[in-house]
C-alpha cells in the first residue's frame, strides 16, 4: 500500500484517475480506517486530501457557503455564521460520533460513506445543498441526494472527488432543523431521522418546504408529499398529523438491530404548533420515548 498526500486537487485527481488498484480518499478517516481495520477494504493507494489548502476551509460569499471536503465537522460547529444560517445542517454534522471523531470526520465523508443513517445527509438534502464534484473531465455540480445511490454506494465516476459542499444563502423567514431518534443521546446512530427546511411568508404561512428522512430507506428520502402538505399551511395540528402520515407512508425501512420496520414507521416528527423554529421532537406517541436536544 502507498500513502500520498498531494498538495493540489489536480494532483489528487490525477493520482485517482491513474491508480491501477483500489484507491481510497482519506479525509477524516473515521470510516476508511475502521473499514481497513475490519478487513472490509484493502486499498493499494491512500490519497490524503488534507494538505490541499482549498479543501480545508469554509468560505462564506454573497451566494452562501462553500464547505471544503476536508473540513472536520467540529469546525462546522465552531463557525458562527454557518451555525446562524444553517442550524439544522450543523446539528446533523455535530451528531456524528464522539468529540474525538468530530475533530476528524467530514460531511463529504459522511455523504460518500453512503449509510442510510448518515446524520449529516438529511439536513443537507433539506437545505438543498449541492456537491461540487471534480474529475478528470472537469467539474459538475449535483444535488447532494444524487450522490448516495444505495448503502455504501455512490454515483461518483472513476477518478471523481467531491471538492466541496455548497449551501445557498438562507432566505429570510426561513429555517432548517434536524432531529434523530436514538436510544442514547451520544455515541449512537439514528434509528430514524428527519430534516426540514421551511420558508414562511409574513403571515406565517408556509411558502416553501423540503422534508428529508434518514434511515427510512436505502438512501435518504425526500418526501415531496410532506412538503406539499406543509405548503400553504400554518403548520397546525391537522397539518402535522397529515405530515406524519405522509412520512410514514413514504418510508421503506428495514428491520435491524436498531429498530423494526413497524417501530420505524411509527416514529413521528413532532413540531410544537406555534413554534417557528426548533425545538423539534422525534417521538413515538405510543410509549412516549423521545429524544430532543437544544442548539448548543
Amino acid at each position, binding site marked *: *500500500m*502507498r*500513502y500520498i*498526500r498531494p498538495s493540489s486537487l489536480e494532483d489528487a485527481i490525477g493520482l485517482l484517475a491513474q491508480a491501477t488498484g483500489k484507491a481510497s480518499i*482519506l479525509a*477524516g*478517516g*473515521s470510516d476508511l*480506517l*475502521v473499514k*481497513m*481495520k*475490519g478487513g472490509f477494504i484493502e486499498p493499494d493507494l*491512500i490519497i*490524503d486530501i*488534507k494538505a490541499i489548502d482549498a479543501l480545508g476551509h469554509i468560505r462564506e460569499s454573497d451566494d452562501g457557503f462553500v464547505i471544503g471536503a476536508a473540513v*472536520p465537522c*467540529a469546525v462546522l460547529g465552531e463557525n458562527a455564521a454557518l451555525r446562524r444560517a444553517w442550524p439544522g445542517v450543523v446539528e446533523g454534522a455535530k451528531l456524528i*460520533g*464522539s*468529540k*474525538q*471523531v468530530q*475533530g*476528524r470526520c467530514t460531511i463529504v465523508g459522511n455523504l460518500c460513506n453512503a449509510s442510510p443513517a448518515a446524520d449529516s445527509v438529511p439536513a443537507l438534502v433539506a437545505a438543498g445543498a449541492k456537491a461540487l464534484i471534480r474529475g478528470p473531465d472537469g467539474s459538475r455540480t449535483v444535488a447532494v441526494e444524487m450522490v448516495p445511490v444505495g448503502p455504501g454506494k455512490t454515483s461518483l465516476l472513476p477518478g471523481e472527488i467531491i471538492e466541496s459542499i455548497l449551501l445557498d444563502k438562507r432566505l429570510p423567514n426561513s429555517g432548517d432543523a434536524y432531529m434523530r431518534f436514538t436510544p442514547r*443521546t*451520544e*455515541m449512537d446512530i439514528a434509528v430514524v431521522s428527519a430534516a426540514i427546511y421551511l420558508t414562511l411568508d409574513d403571515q406565517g404561512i408556509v411558502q416553501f418546504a423540503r422534508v428529508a428522512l434518514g434511515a427510512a430507506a436505502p438512501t435518504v428520502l425526500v418526501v415531496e408529499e410532506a412538503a406539499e402538505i406543509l405548503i400553504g399551511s400554518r403548520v397546525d395540528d391537522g397539518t402535522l398529523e397529515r405530515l406524519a402520515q405522509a412520512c410514514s407512508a413514504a418510508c421503506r425501512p428495514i428491520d435491524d438491530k436498531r429498530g423494526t420496520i413497524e417501530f420505524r414507521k411509527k416514529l413521528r416528527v413532532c413540531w410544537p404548533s406555534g413554534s417557528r423554529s426548533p425545538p423539534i421532537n422525534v417521538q413515538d406517541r405510543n410509549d412516549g420515548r423521545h429524544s430532543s436536544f437544544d442548539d448548543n
Partner: protein
Amino acid sequence: MMAGIAVSTTINGDIAEFLCHPDETLLDALRDRLGLMGVKEGCGTGDCGACSIILDDRLVCSCLVLGAEAEGKHIETVEGMAQGDTLHPLQQKFLEHAALQCGICTPGFLIAAKDLLAKNPDPTEEEIRFGLAGNLCRCTGYDKIVRAVQDAASVMRGA
C-alpha cells in the same frame, strides 16, 4: 532499516521522528516505534477513546489516524501531562477520587479531560458528561471520573 515513511513530529514538546508503514495507525506508531505505552488500544475503531491524543489542538482517537498523517503535527499524550515528579491536577484528582480501577481507559480520559478544560475551564456536570462521552470506562460507572474532573477544574481555575 525498514522501508517506510519517515515522519517528523513534535510529541509533548520534543521533536520525534519515526518510520512507519503506510497503513500503520498513529496508535501503533506511538506505542511500538516510540514506546509511548500510555496510549492504549481498546476497540481500535474509534468507539472507546482509550487511544485519545491531542493532535494539533484537536482531541482525536489515534487508532483512526495513520502514522504518516502526523508529519509536521504537534501531539500531546498522557506522558506529557506530569511535570517531572509533579502530577497534573487531573492526574492528582483522579488518584484522590479513585477515579479508576483497571486503568486502561485512564490515559484517554485524562487527555480528553485536559482538552475539555482547555476549551471550557468551568464546565457543568452535564458538559463534562457530554464532553467525555467518547471515552468508555467499564469499571467506575463514571461518577468518580466526573467528580475528579470537577475538582481538578476548580484547582486549575485557582478557585
